[in-house]
């Protein structure tokens, strides 16, 4: 039982609005953890806070990497967080539409490579080797995700489901220890959702990447997750295994409204 991410007492205020209210969350190595809650509960805000897009008002975010000292990552820039090994996808797809599918994934390799301007212009041995390695690594990931037939297509031209998976591929290219997926199944048809379900499990089992996932599709959440955290109005209202969550009165109340008697 090795904790890899520990969030304590996280608060985020937007002016007068408290979007995150003393939130605690932890992830153990190899887990698939789901973060659920009604619309506007603050799930995306939580992702933005731990990935450096927002600087949280209060609280601590610690990561624990094998063989490294624990680190507090509050206030780091998004690219630094990614470098440390947490990569994310976005609720409303944010690919690089004018770049090819392969290039999108190659961008993920940026923080694991080092070629500079001189390298690019003179194309020394090291640079050529690195470039080749980037292309091959990225292509391997595309094959794992099942997007290899789109390699040279512009990302903006892909079908919706494929775009969602490309976001996952791009995040994986950064070699994360934790993958943060913001509603990966949103807008997918049942068939695509099923494939995604399998894909997420494969990523965890084969690549050993832990996963934190925001999702509204309860079937997917209940089937995939080892543990579930439930939020409402920026607060954590429950946590536990899928079975515990299914029968948790607070959760039912949050989802179905006040009038339901638990």
């Amino acid at each position, binding site marked *: 039982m090795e904790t890899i991410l520990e969030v304590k007492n996280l608060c985020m205020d937007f002016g007068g609005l408290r979007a995150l209210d003393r939130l605690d969350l932890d992830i153990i190595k190899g887990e698939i953890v789901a973060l659920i809650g009604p619309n506007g509960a603050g799930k995306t805000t939580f992702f933005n806070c731990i990935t450096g*897009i927002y600087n949280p008002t209060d609280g601590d975010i610690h990561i624990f990497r094998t063989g490294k000292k624990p680190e507090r990552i509050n206030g780091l820039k998004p690219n630094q967080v990614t470098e440390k090994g947490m990569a994310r996808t976005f609720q409303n797809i944010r690919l690089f539409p004018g770049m090819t599918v392969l290039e999108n994934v190659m961008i993920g390799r940026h923080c694991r490579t080092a070629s500079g301007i001189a390298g690019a212009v003179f194309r020394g041995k090291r640079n050529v080797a690195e470039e080749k390695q980037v292309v091959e690594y990225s292509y391997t990931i595309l094959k794992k995700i099942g997007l290899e037939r789109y390699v040279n297509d512009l990302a903006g031209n892909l079908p919706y489901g494929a775009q969602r998976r490309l976001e996952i591929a791009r995040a994986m290219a950064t070699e994360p220890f934790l993958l943060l997926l913001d509603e990966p199944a949103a807008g997918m048809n049942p068939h695509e959702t099923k494939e995604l379900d399998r894909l997420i499990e494969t990523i965890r089992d084969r690549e050993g990447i832990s996963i934190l996932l925001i999702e509204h599709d309860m079937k997917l959440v209940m089937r995939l997750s080892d543990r579930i955290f439930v939020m409402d109005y920026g607060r954590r209202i429950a946590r536990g295994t899928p079975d515990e969550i299914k029968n948790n009165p607070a959760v039912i109340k949050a989802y179905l409204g006040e009038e339901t008697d638990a």
Partner: protein
Amino acid sequence: MVTTEGIKRSFLISLWFMFLTFPIMVIRVNTIENVIEWRWKNMMIVGIGSFFLSFVWRWLIGRKEAGRKKSESGDSIEVPPGQRIMEDRRFYVPGLIMLSIFVAVFPFVFSAYQVNIMTTALIYVMLGLGLNIVVGLAGLLDLGYVAFYAVGAYSYGLLNYHCGLGFWAVLPIGAGLAAIAGILLGFPVLRLRGDYLAIVTLGFGEIIRLILENYNEFSFGPSGIANIPRPGFFGLEMSLSTATVYLYFILIALTLFTVFVVNRLQNSRIGRAWIALREDEIACQAMGIDKTKTKLTAFALGATWAGMGGVLFAAKTTFINPASFTFLESAMILSIVVLGGMGSIMGVIVGALVLILLPEYLRGLGEYRMLMFGITLVLMMVFRPQGLIARVRRTYKFEETVRQDR
């Protein structure tokens, strides 16, 4: 195609145009006899002309829409014929050979005037390619690019005046100083993008120009610096015509160098980071790219070429003053990039040649020259917003996917 609806619309358009052009096309004050001439014939021409042109316009727009629908429904992306030719070895190898021969004999066949114009155009090719890094690749709308051009030109002018440095010594120094200026501008605008960035860079360009204009002790004010030497060749004395040809070849060499560097950059790790920054700044950062560093390198590298262009400009005209570095110049270079095709090297080259050479050759049209120029730009933006030659991303081949590769 000619419907009552269409006729009605064209009629309204022609009325509108007659109204708009009324003051300039119809009324003329004859100051000698102190009477007003009413040129109703002009009004009729405008009316009838705009009536028919509006049909043509609608037809062209309709065709464009139809073309877009087709490319959206079918998933095969049509490659324009121009691009196909460039990708086909059978065409581009002989084409390239012919082009090189033309470039090599150009100064010996054409007059010094032509060579001079071409040299100017080549300076703009360099400037365009430099700005293309900032605007086309990194997507940072820089309206003050001319500032770096001025830094380069004044580096040469001043270093030559005070320290007696020659062209070849100043070329790298000017480029370096411009790069530093690029970084200096880059820092304060790191957080800005889009319109805000455009406005601040615009201001920066004006600041540099105003400093040059008003700081007499430093830059000799509006009177500028004269007698800047042309590029030397191991101390050889050159006649004016030889010097012109020599400068032309220097520019050809530097343009080739620029194309080489930019081409390598745009498909490199840094180049991809620039493009990612342009496409989506937040996603770009979230994928581990340092926004600060990436933006600053784009600004610095873009400015480097402006600096070199400036040194060359000073060497070509042998005289510089602040009037050469107005906002109009920035706008011109930006037009080259946008019209040619943002992010496309070929596009920028063609754009620079068209935009610089066209007005020269249109001199025959007299005052209508700039009007034609404006109309060309507007038409281009309506019918080919991606520019003359749109960028194409590099494709990669893998054994397993050769079948799918186009």
